């Protein structure tokens, strides 16, 4: 059973380990998010925007050439076709409506690859809200087109210059700015991380992914459940959405694909479940890459969206309980899988999502198993990385 308890824990993981200065904000959110998001009014607006603005339902595409290559029935859940190019917008649409209902005037967000930042800037433009996105200085350099997209959409992009200058530091900076602006500001966290209720709330907004998968599979395969669901995991929001309605269906195997970077044992990796120990980061107890002294270790992945030293507490629990199967894919293998998908199906995936495809080489499955791979984002933002890598 994967459910969050009243204190925000999934088994041993989760909770709300926050400075007292953030307590009123988190408490306001915790007290109100369920009643607001369950209300008919909210659901109507949310569903309508998902349909007409985001472009949902996203297709479930039978990838015939990929299926032939691997000897299974492989479907792609096309989150890459969402407005803004990734699943991230499902969550930002939900949170912006919530923020408005809470009477907030300003939005802040963190971003790694820039996909969540763009998705946040987009809904802020749509709703006429002031928006500031914090982004690691290193990520700003490697994801420049997304920085400009956010600026075109009218958002401010502020570099995070501390630590490794990547996603972790952007998240620190957004939290600090929330402490500085506690009353009128809502913080839109982009993944299933952070203090309760964020992980649970973000998973709920992303759960539309597996909700649609069930209907679509029923139509195409005559059954709601696939044999395997495969998704990449950094913080883990696309995976949480793809698994959500299958957590309690033990016959569905949940495959989580982490970024091994240059290799799990290379010291340049982001494979949190393999390298991490329980610890506390960004307000929740989770698996965390850290030194013996409890200092957070700088992760590495070729994909900025997976370059995070922690993992959502729900995934830490999936790992700990054995419900999820975790594999790690190295940079090189992910790039090759990205090219493979481009050539076999005519779809250039985000490098994050490419990791999920590479996992097909590592996991065992039966002939004719129905496998759904969550294609969380498109590769436009990564063209420069593909070009630099050059091996195609």
């Amino acid at each position: 059973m994967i459910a969050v308890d009243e204190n925000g824990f999934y088994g041993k993981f989760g909770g709300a380990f926050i400075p007292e200065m953030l307590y009123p904000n988190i408490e306001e959110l915790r007290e109100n998010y369920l009643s607001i998001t369950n209300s008919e009014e909210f659901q109507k607006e949310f569903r309508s925007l998902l349909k007409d603005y985001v472009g949902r339902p996203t297709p479930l595409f039978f990838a015939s050439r990929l299926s032939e290559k691997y000897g299974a029935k492989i479907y792609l859940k096309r989150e890459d076709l969402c407005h803004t190019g990734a699943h991230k917008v499902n969550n930002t649409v939900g949170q912006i409506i919530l923020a408005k209902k809470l009477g907030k005037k300003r939005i802040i967000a963190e971003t790694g690859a820039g996909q969540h930042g763009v998705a946040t800037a987009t809904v802020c433009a749509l709703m006429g809200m002031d928006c500031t996105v914090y982004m690691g200085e290193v990520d700003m350099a490697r994801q420049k087109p997304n920085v400009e997209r956010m600026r075109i959409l009218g958002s401010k992009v502020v570099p995070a210059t501390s630590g490794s200058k990547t996603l972790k530091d952007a998240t620190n900076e957004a939290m600090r700015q929330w402490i500085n602006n506690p009353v009128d500001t809502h913080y839109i966290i982009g993944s299933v991380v952070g203090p309760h209720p964020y992980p649970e709330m973000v998973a709920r907004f992303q759960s539309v992914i597996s909700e649609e998968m069930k209907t679509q599979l029923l139509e195409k395969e005559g059954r709601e459940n696939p044999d395997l669901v495969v998704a990449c995991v950094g913080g883990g929001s696309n995976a949480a959405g793809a698994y959500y309605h299958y957590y309690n269906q033990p016959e569905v195997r949940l495959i989580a694909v982490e970024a091994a970077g240059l290799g799990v044992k290379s010291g340049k990796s982001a494979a949190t479940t393999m390298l991490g120990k329980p610890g506390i980061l960004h307000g929740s107890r989770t698996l965390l890459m850290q030194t013996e002294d409890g200092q957070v270790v700088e992760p590495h992945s070729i994909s900025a969206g997976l370059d995070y030293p922690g993992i959502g507490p729900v995934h830490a629990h999936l790992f700990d309980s054995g419900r999820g199967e975790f594999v790690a894919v190295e940079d090189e293998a992910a790039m090759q899988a990205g090219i493979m998908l481009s050539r076999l199906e005519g779809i250039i995936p985000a490098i994050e999502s490419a990791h999920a495809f590479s996992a097909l080489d590592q996991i065992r499955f039966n002939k004719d198993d129905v496998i759904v791979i969550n294609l969380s984002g498109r590769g436009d933002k990564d063209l420069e990385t593909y070009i630099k890598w050059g091996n195609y």
Partner: protein
Amino acid sequence: MNRIDQLFKNKKKDILSIYFTAGFPHLEDTLPVMKALESAGADIIEVGVPYSDPIADGPTIQDSNMVALSNGMSLHKLFEQLANMREHLSLPVILMGYLNPVVQYGVEKFCQKCKEVGVDGLIIPDLPMKQYIYEYKELFDEYGLRNTFLISPQTSEARIREIDQHSDGFIYMVSSASITGAKSGISQEQVTYFERIQRMELSNPRLIGFGISDHETFSKASQYAHGAIIGSAFINILKKANEKGDLSPAIHSFIQKVKQ
């Protein structure tokens, strides 16, 4: 008697608490800085345990944390440095740091060590009250450690009452909605907040921190509480003094100026 309790029993106003980061500016500066603080006339010493991701701290303390970590500071090292501190120091000593390093060290072993070297209290900003009561209070009590909670201008009255009930030692009043070192000067809005808390007649003494940097802000804050805490401004003094070489004269002159 716990040195924190003793201090607040004997002194009711103008209590000066100074925060600095262990192992800053140099690894072996921890104890010398503490000795200088005691001889210069501080009332409480808050020793910061550096952490890679200090989310409640501004750039000054972030930087001192990074410097201390790259100097090789850790809890193991800190307890080594503090092993004989009670031969030199009589002031209350508080460790202030984030939860993760404490958890990795082992909470019980950490408490044991604190007691062994003579630490009197703890401030762990990201340890929420609920979790403290549920998992930590018993251990802290067993080893005679006072735990300090923070409150901010946004903390509700009901929550403040609850915090007061579960605090021992003192309550740390964050002076404004901000991270450390964010601003200087005390506004009328802040005074209104200080007065509101003063009128609540809490059972624990209060110290005001964040944005306290000099004599003016210290004495103003002290009018509304038992005293105040200086952190970032003191780190900046250490940084400057380090460029000239000798920390002790700068520490003495700073404390004297603040207290006047």
